[in-house]
């Protein structure tokens, strides 16, 4: 089995993102960048599948600026075999990302595409579903457990009502949730070794995708702030306050 894993370069989840004063975007200068945490879980899963002997090749792909090579190198150090970068400085919207990935899928013919269920920058949660629609293949979103059985996979999904299990035929697209696994830390020797692994970079523009479905980002603003409240000294005072506010 060949697995394609998507890795997006995003602002690290520990960074408290701030909107620029002129409302033109968010401050990303000098901010720590990382692999989208959900994508890291997708890659970890691919590596575990390969370690179990159920896959023989893992290809990681990123769409983004040249600096995304860092995230791809980290992916290679974790255990991916090859990397592909579709390089662009534009903010890529989900449909374009899905179309670009379809291109890669058609060239690479993977049995499985593993992706994060959302990227923690735009929080759209669309690209995996769009890719599977464009590809005409099954989707299993929000996966917290994946079991293979020949050319089928049983996927347990985290849904609002609890857990749901579906079975999909391969090839398929799966988007992963947080509880699927805990990604490994990469060790120094692996980082050194990863430098020798192949990383193919080409401009996204070469694919000739149109951006005519793109939305306009009109303005960015900080969220409404909740004012800090007051500290109560005792349970009795808390209960009084809640009663005064008509909440009890």
């Amino acid at each position, binding site marked *: 089995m060949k697995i394609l894993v998507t890795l997006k370069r995003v602002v690290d989840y520990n960074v408290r993102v701030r909107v620029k004063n002129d409302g033109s975007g968010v401050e990303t200068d000098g901010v720590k960048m990382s692999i989208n945490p959900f994508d890291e879980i997708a890659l970890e899963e691919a590596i575990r599948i390969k370690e179990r002997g159920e896959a023989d090749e893992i290809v990681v792909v990123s769409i983004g600026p040249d600096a995304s090579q860092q995230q791809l190198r980290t992916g290679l150090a974790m255990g991916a075999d090859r990397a592909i970068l579709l390089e662009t400085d534009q903010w890529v919207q989900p449909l374009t990302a899905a179309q670009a990935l379809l291109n890669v899928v058609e060239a690479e013919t993977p049995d499985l595409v593993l992706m994060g269920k959302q990227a*923690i920058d735009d929080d*759209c949660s669309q690209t995996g579903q769009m890719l599977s629609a464009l590809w005409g293949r099954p989707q299993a*979103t929000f996966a917290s457990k994946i079991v293979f059985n020949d050319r089928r996979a049983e996927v347990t999904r985290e849904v609002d*009502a609890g857990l749901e299990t579906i079975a999909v035929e391969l090839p398929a697209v799966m988007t992963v949730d947080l509880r699927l696994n805990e990604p490994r830390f990469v060790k120094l020797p692996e980082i050194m070794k990863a430098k020798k692994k192949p990383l193919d970079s080409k401009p996204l523009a070469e694919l000739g995708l149109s951006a005519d479905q793109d939305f306009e980002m009109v303005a*960015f603003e900080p969220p409404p702030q909740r004012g800090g409240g*007051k500290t109560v000294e005792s349970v009795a005072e808390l209960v009084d306050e809640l009663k005064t506010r008509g909440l009890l």
Partner: protein
Amino acid sequence: MAKVLIIAEHDGRSLSPATAKTVQGAHGLAADVIDVVVFGDALDAIAQDAAKLAGVTCVRVVEDASLAPALASRLAPEVVALSEGYTHILAPSTTFGRDLLPRVAGLLGCNQVSDVMEVVDARTFKRPIYAGNAIVTVRVPDAISPVLATVRTASFAAAAASGSAKVEAASAQAQDPGHTEYVGAEGSSGEGPDLSSATVVVSGGRAMGSSENFELIGSLAKKLGAAVGASRAAVDAGYVPNELQVGQTGKIIAPDLYIAVGISGAIQHLTGIKDAGTIVAINKDPDAPIFEVADLGLVGDLFQLLPELEDAL
């Protein structure tokens, strides 16, 4: 003028409250027509509930055994088949809508607005990004039709049950792609109010320490008629099942009263409770970030304070 199609969410027995909130969101579009489509099998009661939602023009009922339980790959082509003539297609931003609508978008070859928190006009919407650390105003250019959007249910009240729309049967038009099969589901006991729509929620965090101790949360919630929630750390540790997680990757909720016990207040958790009416925090660390957003903060050991609180009620 806008002509809106809303994809109803239900569990086979009743209409999800998320549908009523999506209808409320659609009111902001100044639409001529708001139709609701219900897919599944044996839908009479669900269709009747949808027909009562204020502002709904027509409930289109597509009954077919192959449409239940709902699978995105089966439903998406049905939505596409019905999409003709609509300017907007909406679904709730629940796991149901977030699974289905982007697949519809893929089939139609357009982008989608995720998690609409405010309708500015029929083509302009506000939505949260970066775990709610920024709000972006998105405009869908005039050339793009239909406009696809999921509606963040915590941002809208439920549409009133005061209407009487007509109910129309339609038949399934697409083929079952046959590559995806429903296997089964497991969910909570269904005891107590539903977390997504409860007016009072009591949540516990890592500090609870075990599922036995988490009973302290359950018993306080029972006394308050509240739903139980949890932080990711509490879910990861196995104290409670995943459907109780509140936050960026769990449920986004807007209860009148939210009580956070032994939860530090990580940004990903706070995203889930920004719209709560009153936030109460109980934490032994006076510097915990949860106190920055709490309306009422009580510093102390939860194992002492929770029983005291329950007694005081």
